């Protein structure tokens, strides 16, 4: 893909008419009136309802499954187990935020020979009502031989740890090793001479960090409807971030040609990375096949969502950094062990990139380990791996700055990467805006405001996310009234219909209201990677830009015909096609398309590589109650280089959401397991995501350093803002009470313990 420059000149610098405004979203009325159809809202004629039997154990061999009694329940139409799944070989597929092996996915959607976590799906029932399906599920008899579970990442790495997957072998720096293990892989990045780097340091800080398992916490549970038709064609309606990814996974898992699977994405009630992989989709298709080709709907309850989907890795991280007294980092060493849940694929790879990405370093060593444990398979969660990593590194950066006695933003400025610097894992940065975020933070009234009162503190932290390009396709046609229908394949989770339509309108110099975007199914538009990796406004917006150029070219041809002039003489500006004094308006031509007998349609696909990373710097004020250990967020400011904010309200919203999730992770969110591996807090009561009363207004500063790799300068914005909050809050807590918190979440109990330990020492 070669870069097509915006004809107005330098990317991101043009005076735009539509970009930068704040129009209402096209799907808005449906979503505020309850008409929008989400996953669980799909209803088909003759539909059956499914329910899942899940493992009560964290680790056990399945010795037998007897479904006969369940099958006899009146109203039960089908029961499936893993025996109904085709046997498949290793197939690696990129879901958008991480590569997975579909053999493991098959094992995850219905447990094969062992159950590997509490809540692992074992069997499914389809019946004429949910109540009947749930009753029947209870009648399925499963005999388990219990095995010892291992839940902690470091425990799982030990030689004598219980083995979870018998066939797993460590990939050690790219080479397969012999012997059973829970360590799926070890990766490493190194540069320079670590010893020399630390020798040059005046101060060295080394700390260990632990972070707990957290969930994406989308409010909409997973839901899917499957129809395995009499002709062999499978249609799945589901709430997903990527319909094509679901199509491909269903096709591979059920060994069907991809053309025999259609996925119709519904509206999606939040994903944050957790709705990329399949859970229910292959199962409802199998149930439908067995149930006489009737459609089957299955919707998880909240307990199932927390037990069996999503979470992101708990981790152990050790960071050592050295700096000179004048504030120059000399060396850094990081060790990251991330638990992947029951199957390989933790985000330790991206964590190893994030952890030192903001800083210039001549000497560094990063080791990352992907480790399996008896917890649900980890899924991507907004900047996968990044929050844990930055929590550790930003705390050490803060500690160094404090020891040196330098302002923490100044310290970061002295070491901040800029264009031409090499990232820890190798690539060279193009134009980036990290320094600009640090300057904007320094100048912000929040940072300059005095912070008064006891037990109050201010913290800052920065964060990086690489973003993603991916593949996007769109199709468009011009209506006789001069409006444009735009067909996209990117599920709209946070206003991307608007941000993509705005880019098309800007390209075509038409009104935003004249673009009618639709998110369509996998049969109706070219391939699209998932809405993930902060790519949709960037990548699908770019496809819209390309299709806009094509539509204008086609309209020029129509104008040339109508004006009876050479195509080359046609100019287009401000909605007017002109040639030597004659002109026709865009809408005039559109009206006459029928008479010219030549409908105007176009398609475009892009696969951009220069997606441009995002950097953010956050400032937070907290107050700690030293008697209870509770942390109150008093004030929060998020500064981020967003490239170009297409729809500033939605960009602000992404920053707000990232901060809120990051603060939840920082203070209260975690999976609580007992020693046998049972998840104890699988509800929104005890898995504590922030409420409206737990957060203040969140101030945002959108720094716009145009991405030279995009026609409008867009950078992905959604993920970067979840990277800094945990580190910023930890640094603020230190400022407030003088305690360095090294575990996430920094819950009241852990803060009290830390305060007691401080008193006692």
């Amino acid at each position, binding site marked *: 893909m070669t870069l097509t420059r915006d004809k107005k000149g330098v990317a991101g610098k043009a005076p735009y008419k539509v970009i930068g405004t704040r129009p209402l979203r096209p799907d808005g009325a449906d979503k*505020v*009136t309850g008409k929008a159809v989400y996953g669980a809202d799909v209803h088909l004629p003759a539909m059956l309802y499914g329910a899942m039997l899940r493992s009560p154990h964290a680790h056990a061999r399945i010795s037998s499954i007897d479904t006969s009694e369940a099958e006899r329940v009146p109203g039960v139409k089908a029961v499936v187990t893993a025996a109904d799944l085709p046997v498949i070989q290793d197939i690696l597929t990129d879901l958008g935020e991480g590569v997975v092996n579909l053999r493991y996915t098959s094992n995850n959607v219905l447990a094969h020979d062992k159950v590997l976590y509490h809540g692992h799906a074992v069997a499914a029932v389809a019946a004429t009502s949910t109540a009947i399906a749930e009753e029947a599920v209870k009648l399925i008899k499963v005999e388990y031989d219990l095995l010892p579970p291992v839940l902690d990442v470091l425990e799982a790495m030990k030689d004598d740890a219980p083995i979870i997957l018998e066939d797993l072998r460590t990939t050690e720096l790219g080479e397969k090793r012999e012997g059973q293990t829970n360590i799926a892989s070890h990766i490493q990045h190194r540069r320079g001479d670590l010893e020399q780097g630390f020798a040059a340091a005046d101060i060295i800080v080394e700390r260990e960090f632990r972070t707990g398992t957290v969930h994406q916490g989308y409010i909409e549970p997973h839901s899917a409807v499957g129809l395995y038709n009499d002709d062999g064609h499978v249609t799945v309606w589901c709430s997903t971030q990527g319909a094509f990814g679901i199509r491909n996974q269903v096709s591979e898992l059920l060994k069907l040609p991809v053309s025999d699977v259609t996925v119709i994405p519904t*509206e999606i009630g939040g994903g944050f990375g957790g709705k990329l992989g399949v859970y229910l989709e292959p199962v409802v298709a199998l149930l439908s096949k067995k149930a006489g080709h009737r459609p089957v709907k299955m919707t998880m309850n909240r307990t199932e969502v927390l037990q069996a989907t999503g979470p992101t890795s708990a981790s152990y991280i050790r960071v050592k950094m050295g700096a000179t007294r004048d504030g120059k980092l000399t060396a850094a060493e990081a060790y990251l062990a991330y638990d992947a849940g029951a199957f390989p694929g933790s985000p330790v790879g991206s964590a190893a990139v994030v952890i030192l990405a903001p800083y210039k370093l001549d000497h560094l060593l990063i080791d990352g380990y992907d480790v399996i444990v008896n917890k649900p398979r980890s899924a991507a969660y907004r900047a996968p791996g990044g929050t844990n990593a930055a929590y550790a590194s930003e705390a050490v950066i803060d500690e160094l700055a404090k020891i040196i006695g330098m302002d923490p933003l100044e310290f970061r400025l002295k070491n901040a990467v800029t264009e031409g610097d090499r990232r820890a894992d190798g690539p060279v940065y193009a134009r980036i805006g990290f320094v600009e975020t640090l300057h904007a933070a320094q100048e912000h009234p929040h940072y300059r405001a005095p912070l008064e009162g006891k037990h109050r503190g201010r913290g800052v932290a920065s964060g990086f996310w690489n973003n993603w390009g991916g593949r996007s396709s769109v199709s468009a046609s011009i209506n006789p009234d001069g409006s444009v229908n735009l067909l996209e394949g990117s599920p709209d989770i946070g206003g991307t219909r608007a941000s993509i339509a705005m880019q098309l309108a800007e390209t075509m110099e038409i009104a935003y209201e004249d673009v009618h975007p639709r998110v369509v199914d996998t049969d109706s538009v070219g391939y699209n990677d998932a809405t993930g990796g902060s790519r949709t406004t960037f990548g699908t917006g770019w496809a819209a830009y390309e299709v806009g150029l094509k539509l204008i070219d086609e309209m020029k041809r129509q104008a040339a015909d109508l004006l009876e002039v050479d195509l080359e003489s046609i100019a287009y500006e401000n909605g007017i096609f002109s040639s030597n004094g004659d002109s026709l308006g865009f809408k005039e031509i559109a009206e006459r398309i029928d008479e010219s007998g030549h409908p105007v349609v176009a398609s475009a696909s892009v696969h951009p590589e220069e997606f441009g990373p995002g950097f953010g710097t956050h400032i937070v004020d907290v107050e700690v109650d030293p008697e209870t250990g509770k942390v109150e967020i008093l004030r929060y400011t998020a500064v981020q280089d967003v490239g170009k904010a297409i729809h500033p309200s939605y960009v*602000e919203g992404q920053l*707000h959401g990232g901060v809120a999730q990051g603060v939840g992770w920082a203070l209260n969110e975690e999976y609580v397991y007992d020693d046998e591996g049972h998840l104890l807090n699988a*509800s929104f009561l005890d898995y504590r995501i922030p409420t409206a009363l737990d957060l203040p207004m969140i101030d945002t500063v959108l720094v716009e350093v145009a991405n030279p790799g995009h026609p409008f300068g867009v950078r992905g914005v959604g993920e970067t803002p979840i990277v800094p909050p945990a580190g910023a809050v930890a640094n603020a807590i230190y400022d407030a009470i003088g305690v360095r918190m090294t575990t996430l979440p920094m819950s009241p109990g852990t803060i009290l313990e830390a305060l007691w330990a401080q008193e006692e020492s």
Partner: protein
Amino acid sequence: MADRVIVNTSINGEEATLLCEPRQTLLEVLREGLRLTGTKEGCSNGNCGACNVLLDGVLVNSCLVLAVEAEGRSVTTIEGIALPEGLHPLQQKFLEHAALQCGICTPGFIISAKALLEENPSPTEEEVRFWLAGNLCRCTGYDKIVRAVLDTAEAAPSVGSFGGETP
């Protein structure tokens, strides 16, 4: 199976006669029976507010109400909030303030905010946050939601201007 029960109720101002099993929640009957799927199920145990409706004008979680309890009472769902002339001011302000991202929690928030403004037409930010604490949103960090509610109150400070179907 227990006997089904006939339930006479009013939903969004229209009389409705439902045939319910006692075990069915109001949420289930609204969604599965009446296909009023604007009321969402997020947790099904009263911890997220996505299923909020007004029962005789009082804010409740419809997942924690049995459908049979609606006998002789009136239910207002998100489908009954818009005014004859267009969107309810709260709905309009939610759009203008970009107070929704994925939108799954939005019906619950709008119902909840409507109940708030009927009781307290000029709430402070703190009062809005307190009132809305039973509605979880994972996308927005609540910032734009709180602004949308405050702005609605400011634009139409008297209860009477809200209209709608609430008795």
